[in-house]
């Protein structure tokens, strides 16, 4: 009986080794620092990293990226207009210590929730955009994340806009219990209506994208690309090792693994995202 063993741990958050990656948060990078790459262990200066969009100049490792920086890298200057910026989670099911966790997440991330939604132009092409936030409870999906993304898809359907999304998430947020799980269905419904109306959805999977996010809107896009080295999966590696008692193959659940298995269209370096996305948008602009 698998439900008995702690196997579904990745539906929650907090089991990722990625927490150790918090050592460097680009948000607090005003002063010049020497930053060690978590992959190749070589040092770069923080200004050097900022110039390379937080990609290690030696090994191309992609650091976790703050939401606002991501938006700066992707959107045309001054074009981003945020939606539902004030929406914030409540402790609906009375889960112990959830308020405290939310408050800490707000302080740590300086954001109200784990996703930022809005509209923008990218090289002049209009799009609805969502970017998930790794610094807010590891991008976990509760009802506010569900509602904001659903509203974004509904807005895009109404306006016939493409949706560009960046995922990073540990999965559904267990502090909101079953209501978090229901968000997977809710968002999927909105994605389907957007798709049935003939609109484009482009999703970029970043490190890590797991659990209920993988099992819903991350895998529902027309075009799915991944950042190099991103870990993408349904269950987390530790859970799989516990369940199967097997050692995982090298590179299991990495972006290139998913490419090989046929689940992403391409693996694209962060520094090429803006150009890639705007070209895809261009190819999907109706000739009228």
């Amino acid at each position, binding site marked *: 009986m698998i*439900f008995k063993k702690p196997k579904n741990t990745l*539906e929650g958050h907090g089991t990722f080794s990625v927490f150790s990656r918090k050592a460097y948060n680009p948000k607090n990078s005003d002063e010049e620092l020497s930053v060690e790459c978590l992959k190749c262990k070589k040092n770069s200066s923080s200004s050097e990293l900022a110039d390379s969009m937080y990609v290690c100049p030696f090994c191309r490792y992609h650091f976790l990226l703050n939401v606002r920086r991501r938006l700066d890298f992707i959107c045309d200057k001054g074009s981003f207009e945020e939606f539902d910026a004030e929406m914030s989670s409540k402790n609906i*099911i009375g889960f112990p210590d959830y308020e405290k966790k939310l408050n800490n997440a707000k302080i740590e991330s300086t954001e109200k929730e784990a996703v930022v939604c809005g509209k923008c132009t990218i090289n002049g092409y209009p799009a609805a955009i969502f970017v998930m936030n790794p610094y807010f409870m590891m991008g976990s999906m509760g009802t506010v994340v569900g509602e904001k993304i659903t509203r974004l898809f509904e807005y895009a359907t109404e306006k016939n806009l493409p949706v560009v999304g960046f995922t990073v998430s540990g999965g*559904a947020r267990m502090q909101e219990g079953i*209501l978090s799980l*229901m968000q997977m269905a809710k968002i999927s*419904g909105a994605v389907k209506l957007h798709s049935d109306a003939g609109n484009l959805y482009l999703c970029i999977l970043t490190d890590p994208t797991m659990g209920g996010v993988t099992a819903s809107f*991350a895998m529902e896009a027309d075009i799915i690309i991944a950042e190099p080295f991103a870990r993408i999966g349904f*269950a987390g590696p530790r859970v799989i090792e516990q*369940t199967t008692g097997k050692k995982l193959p090298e590179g299991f659940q990495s972006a290139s693994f998913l490419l090989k298995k046929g689940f992403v269209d391409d693996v694209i370096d962060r520094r090429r995202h803006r150009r890639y996305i705007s070209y895809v948008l261009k190819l999907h602009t109706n000739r009228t």
Partner: protein
Amino acid sequence: MTAYERVTQARAKGRASTADFIENIISGFIEMHGDRRFADDSSIISGIGRLGDIPVTVIGVEKGKSVKERGLRNSGSAHPEGYRKALRQMKLAEKFRRPVICFVDTPGAFCGIGAEERGQGQAIAENLMEMMTLKTPIVSIIIGEGGSGGALALAVADEVWMLENSVYSVISPEGCAAILWKDGKRATEAAECLKLTAQDLLKFGVIEKIIPENIKTDKKIFETVKQELIKTFEKNSTVQNLTENRYKRYRKIGEF
């Protein structure tokens, strides 16, 4: 009864399973195997039969009863092929305008190497999306464990019912306790926190109906489920209303 006692009940050996429900409420059931892509996943039983006079498609997760059968059925933890088989059957149901009945009793989608390699997440995601606009009625019944995404992949429906002592949760209480307190043994506490009982879920508006179990025999439960299903499918609803209401059903969940 405490939440964890319900969890224990939901997992109890000898509890009526999908196969029992099919045997007792569907006449002339014929099983359909395989996803037409890779394999047949025995964790999920699917096929067609009659509910009273109504031809129906039935899909359900089966854990298995004997040790051998449990092995064969992977204790009800489906692989991507199981969800793809389910979707294939649903598409046929849509084509031939048959209502769909789903029975859910799973610890969760399987967490294994093969499952990941063949897109466990993608398989579930596709079901969620396609079920939302499937142009035929769907009723899902949680009969034992409703384990997270693996349960939801068969529970995007017009109505979701739960047996009185079944549970439906985003994560197992053991998993939740292991993450929160680094102690899987505090599952009893976690079960309370997660609000996973049928009674809680009815309150949240996540389910429509609780099927009582405080009756002596399973026979009575089967009869209740059968009559309720017939009543539901006899309601006339246009296809457009059906999918619109299904969308609204999920659209309203959440508080901000």
